[in-house]
């Protein structure tokens, strides 16, 4: 187990270096930089900025240096925990992103938990009651859940709540807590708002989980050992949970690895629609305005957290399944 852990941790290093390169250079791809975008915005508003001032700003932000030296400048500070300044907000990136990153992960983890629990219960029930009415309904809903884009569900639910009940479901906090410092009451308030993004983000994931769980368990239930156990008179409930469910759970655990990046991705768009105070809306703005340190840091942090999440799920899988632990790869 220790060897497995060490090898996985060593593999993280090249991955992280690669991610930092992608995060930085992708942001540098668009022609021009923040200042050209800024000047264009000013010009659109009928404003101008004189050339000398522009050059001074460019020097101040380090935009006049060559690309490679800017990368090392950025990554060197990044490792020490300084993510540079956001041009647009005129604030250190550090101040802007942590709370949003934390909220992104709270939402993603809550959704993951939701999909796993619902997927497990419905999947087991569907498999043990194959071809029952409930099974058909679950399968049908699952297919629809896979087909509808998350942001469309968000739009439809918001529209329905707004036109029928006059409710505005956007945001993650009630008005009075929006800019309030963190307190117990604010956490409770957030939990009250969390269910909507959780359900919206969870639909496609849950549908996938139900299908995986159902198919795995059905395969397992057909095996001779189940028949043997039943012939020996084992209680049906005990028979189900003692072996088949545990074996079927295995691929289920491994899905956490890819479900997490998917959720982080998906929450980006849903957050824009629901105007949640997570990374999504801010990343979108930063990308549009070429606010590069902010955008790069977001991309980098989201990727790092995803990589760590995947690592944790691999470790979990290795812990559950000795074949992986022993086999090494």
């Amino acid at each position, binding site marked *: 187990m220790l060897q497995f852990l060490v090898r996985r941790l060593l593999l993280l290093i090249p991955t992280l270096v690669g*991610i930092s390169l992608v995060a930085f250079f992708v*942001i540098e791809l668009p022609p021009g930089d923040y200042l050209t975008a800024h000047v264009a915005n000013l010009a659109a508003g009928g404003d101008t900025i004189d050339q000398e001032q522009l050059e001074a700003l460019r020097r101040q932000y380090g935009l006049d240096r060559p690309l490679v030296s800017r990368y090392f400048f950025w990554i060197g500070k990044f490792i020490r925990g300084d993510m540079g300044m956001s041009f647009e907000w005129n604030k250190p990136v550090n101040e802007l992103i942590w709370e949003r990153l934390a909220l992104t992960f709270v939402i993603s983890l809550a959704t993951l938990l939701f999909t796993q629990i619902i997927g497990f219960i419905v999947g087991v029930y569907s498999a043990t009651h194959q071809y029952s009415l409930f099974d058909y309904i679950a399968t049908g809903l699952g297919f629809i859940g896979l087909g509808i884009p998350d942001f*469309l569900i968000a*739009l439809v639910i918001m529209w329905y709540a707004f*036109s029928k009940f006059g409710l505005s479901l956007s945001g993650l906090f009630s008005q009075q807590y929006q800019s309030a410092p963190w307190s117990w009451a604010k956490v409770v308030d957030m939990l009250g708002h969390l269910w909507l993004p959780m359900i919206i983000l969870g639909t496609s994931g849950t549908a996938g989980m139900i299908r995986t769980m159902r198919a795995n368990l059905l395969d397992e239930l057909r095996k001779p050992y189940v028949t043997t156990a039943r012939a020996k008179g084992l209680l049906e409930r005990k028979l189900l949970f003692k072996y088949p469910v545990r074996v079927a759970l295995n691929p289920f655990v491994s899905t956490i690895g890819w479900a997490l990046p998917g959720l982080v991705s998906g929450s980006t768009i849903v957050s824009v629609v629901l105007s949640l105070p997570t990374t999504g809306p801010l990343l979108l703005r930063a990308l549009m305005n070429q606010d590069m340190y902010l955008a790069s840091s977001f991309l980098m942090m989201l990727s790092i957290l995803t990589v760590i999440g*995947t690592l944790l799920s691999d470790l979990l899988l290795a812990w559950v399944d000795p074949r992986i632990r022993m086999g090494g790869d």
Partner: protein
Amino acid sequence: MTDGVLVNELEEIAPGGGQDKVYVATQWQLMWWKFRRHKMAIVGGFILIGLYLITIFCEFLAPYDPHRYDVKFAYAQPQRVHFYGQNGLGLYAYGLVGHRDPESLRMVFEVDRSVEVPLRFLVQGDPYKLWGLIPGTLHLFGAASNDQVVFVLGADRLGRDLLSRLLVGTRVSMTIGLVGVLMSMVFGILIGGSSGYFSGVYDTVVQRIIEFIRSIPSIPLWMALSAAVPKDWPPVRVYFSITIILSFISWTGLARVVRGKFLSLREEDFVMSARLVGSSEFRIIVRHMVPSFLSHIIASLTLSIPGMILSETSLSFLGLGIRPPAISWGVLLQDAQNLRSVALAPWLLIPGIAVVLAVLAYNFLGDGLRDAADPYSR
């Protein structure tokens, strides 16, 4: 599973039954028999044929030019088509009378039953160029005179006909998945295939690269890449940039499938015997290995198209993908981003139904193809 059981099972799917038929059937015939039993896949297939017909003839099917606007009819509601009017049987829609609501200051439309707008099939209407080449003015249906507008699915904020825009948007949305998948197929088969065939260090490096690309959350990466597409590029170039961006991540999934197939097939007896009789490596790959996993490739390709359609829709919805004046379903849904306009004009969500329909149809078809790809399995 023994041969006897296998043949018995295959007999069930063969038309008319009978062992003889199964024994002489080709691989593709067995697949077709199996596929035919998957009812939902057949339905999905027909829906897709319909959607691609719309894609081909969208200019002719659309009653109006999708860019024709009339601000007088901003957010006009969908008009119902009636079959029986004052002059007897025929297609009619009642006219709309707009007036400004004194309180909210926005246009409110009422149905004016005294005005009947006759609808005709094959009418002369707005000029268009089919596929950008063949000029024409004939439309499948529309108001008898082109001055009158009938909004079957309502109008958007500029008073443009949503039905026409939806039909024309089908072209971009339905082809972007195909083009993107073709591109990922080339990468996936080349890189995945070579990685599975040669193995060793090369294989390890390719696998690490694939793992690395997959570890970056896709939508933020897509957003960053599409934000890099210059704003002043012409629509066609933007279209191809977006497909390249979409296939940048999705080839990895396909490469894995191909590699897995290559690894398992390499050990098969028929590859060994081909090698023993002196076939060249190239001949073994092209003549023996590729045909035996081609069906799997087609199935996984089909299953990766809906993801692409959804991604294009999401990106365009955020304003990062296809940009107006080009039209795609995502561009149309962008109008629905604002809760107030959706509350005012719920029909703006209709393009979403088209997205769901296309995605489900592809999923069903892909499921059926995947099951049929291996006719010997249960």
